[in-house]
């Protein structure tokens, strides 16, 4: 019974496809999978927007939206209808084609990433040996799309926002990749399915997730920081900093195109949260061995939503960074630690199965974190904000 429930989507897809002639079945299966992803994640997006608005409200001692439907649960529907019916304004002097293409490129590129995420046992749309590489390769156009949006709008705020976005996303792409390489080194595979399999073992009922190792924990924290910056999420939301840039690269977008940008941003968060869960939190594997009977896809989406809650919590807490703080943090703190984490992961691999590797690896990471933080704070490159006024 539980086996069936675990594989329910796979079986459902197989049953539906079974109605078609044999030659069409493979293609139809893929189309079905794509349709499921394209429907599911925007639905999750609506849920997350509601969670975010209510949650942020509570964090600021407000009630949050509570007018549309009971407890405001229909708010996303109202928001969606509003953006659908709004006038779509294109600036007269904008580059029409690029302006039109930018949101499409963003959403398409972000959706592509979901193809390789294992959302449950046997629930990877495209099984690939180098799926991690594929994920990052298809994710690259998101930067391009943001720059397209900023450039084609012919608006100084849009362009500044796009410049910031490109600088930020390229800077944080490096630590994002480097922190995932440690996982690849230990798991010995670029395939996300194999990485999940490698973590799906239990000792004394506890899972072998990579986050429970010193290098994995450090890697996860670095990955989370880089992922937050990569998705232009607060506190790294400089590309759309309302207080200084109106709305950044999507200043000149309205109506449904703006909604697409909004959707793309949240889909990017889902996708990167899914990747983080897959790499460090054991993907679809259960957190305790006695919970193994719960369908695997529930665990994946639970981890995804938990990550979204963390994103919301961070947004409700942290103020926006300044551009130089952002860059210093990326190149002088996150990247060196990510590089060091690679070394530590290698050390972990070669130190064998004793307790020694736990002590050594943890000590190296903790000491380097403390020392690097101390040095950077002393150099006033990181740490509390200080302002020098002219005159």
């Amino acid at each position: 019974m539980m086996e069936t429930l675990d594989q329910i989507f796979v079986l459902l897809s197989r049953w539906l496809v079974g109605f078609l002639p044999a030659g069409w079945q493979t293609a139809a299966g893929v189309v079905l999978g794509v349709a499921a992803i394209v429907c599911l994640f925007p639905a999750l997006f609506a849920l997350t927007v509601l969670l975010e608005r209510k949650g942020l409200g509570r964090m600021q001692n407000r009630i949050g939206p509570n007018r549309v439907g009971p407890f405001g649960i229909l708010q996303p529907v109202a928001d969606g209808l509003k953006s659908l019916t709004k006038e779509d304004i294109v600036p007269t002097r904008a580059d029409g084609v690029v302006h039109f293409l930018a949101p499409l490129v963003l959403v398409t590129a972000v959706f592509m990433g979901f193809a390789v995420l294992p959302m449950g046992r046997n629930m990877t749309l495209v099984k690939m040996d180098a799926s991690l590489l594929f994920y990052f390769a298809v994710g690259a156009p998101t930067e391009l799309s943001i720059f397209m949006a900023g450039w084609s709008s012919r608006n100084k705020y849009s362009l500044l926002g796009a410049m910031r976005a490109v600088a930020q996303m390229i800077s944080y792409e490096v630590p994002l990749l480097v922190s995932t390489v440690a996982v690849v080194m230990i798991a010995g595979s670029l395939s996300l399915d194999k990485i999940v399999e490698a973590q799906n073992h239990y000792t004394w009922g506890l899972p072998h997730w990579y986050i429970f190792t010193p290098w994995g924990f450090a890697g996860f924290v670095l990955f989370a920081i880089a992922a937050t910056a990569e998705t232009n999420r607060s506190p790294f939301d400089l590309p759309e900093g309302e207080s200084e840039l109106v709305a950044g690269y999507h200043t000149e977008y309205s109506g449904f195109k703006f909604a697409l940008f909004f959707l793309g941003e949240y889909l990017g968060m889902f996708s990167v949260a899914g990747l983080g869960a897959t790499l460090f939190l054991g993907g679809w594997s259960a957190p305790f061995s006695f919970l193994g009977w719960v369908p695997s896809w529930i665990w994946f989406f639970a981890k995804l939503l938990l990550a979204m809650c963390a994103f919301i919590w961070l947004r409700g807490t942290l103020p926006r960074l300044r551009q130089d703080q952002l860059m210093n943090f990326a190149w002088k703190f996150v990247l060196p630690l990510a590089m060091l984490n690679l070394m530590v992961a290698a050390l972990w691999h070669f130190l064998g199965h004793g307790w020694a590797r736990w002590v050594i690896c943890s000590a190296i990471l903790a000491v380097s974190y403390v020392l690097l933080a101390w040095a950077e704070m002393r150099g006033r490159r990181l740490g509390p904000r200080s302002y020098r006024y002219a005159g």
Partner: protein
Amino acid sequence: MLGEGILKGLAETAKNFAGSFVSAERLTTVQYPEERIAPIEATRDFPFLVYDGADWEAGLRCVACQICEKECPPKCIYIEKSTDKKPDFTGKPQFYPARFDIDISVCMSCQICVEVCPFEAIKMDTEFELSTEDRFAGLLFDRKQLAKPNEHYRKIHPAEAAAVDARLAAEKAKAGARAKAASDAAAAKAAARPAEGGD
């Protein structure tokens, strides 16, 4: 230590989040159309014209002196002076506004008209639910819409209205005394004249 502040901040927001479900006094939101807070004494938004008695047209205190019209910084007041006169609250014949319009879409609620008025005829109202479908005619108030009884003034600004009422009463008493003195003097003069004539 780097990251300490972030943890502290996260704890603070978590406390807010959890606390907002437990303690009602954390949520300060007043859900407006259903719940309202009584306006404070000094609340003001747009001017209105005070009238005494039951008939708004007869009771208007305004004498169409047009000081407010001239002083109004955004020039939102338009007054047409009457050609005839009517007695004011002391009984003295005065002009009255044949037309008195305020465009509240222009008014900036500065209260200068109230401060310059020598007749306590224009005061600030607290009514703020003035949205309308016609943004031109719907926001241009004529003297009928502007006229509100003194009772309304007493209700919205009790302390201020009491002071104004006392001042007006004193003025009226003084004017009455002066009129009485004048009529007494006239009567005395009239009484004295026959004696003179008889001389």
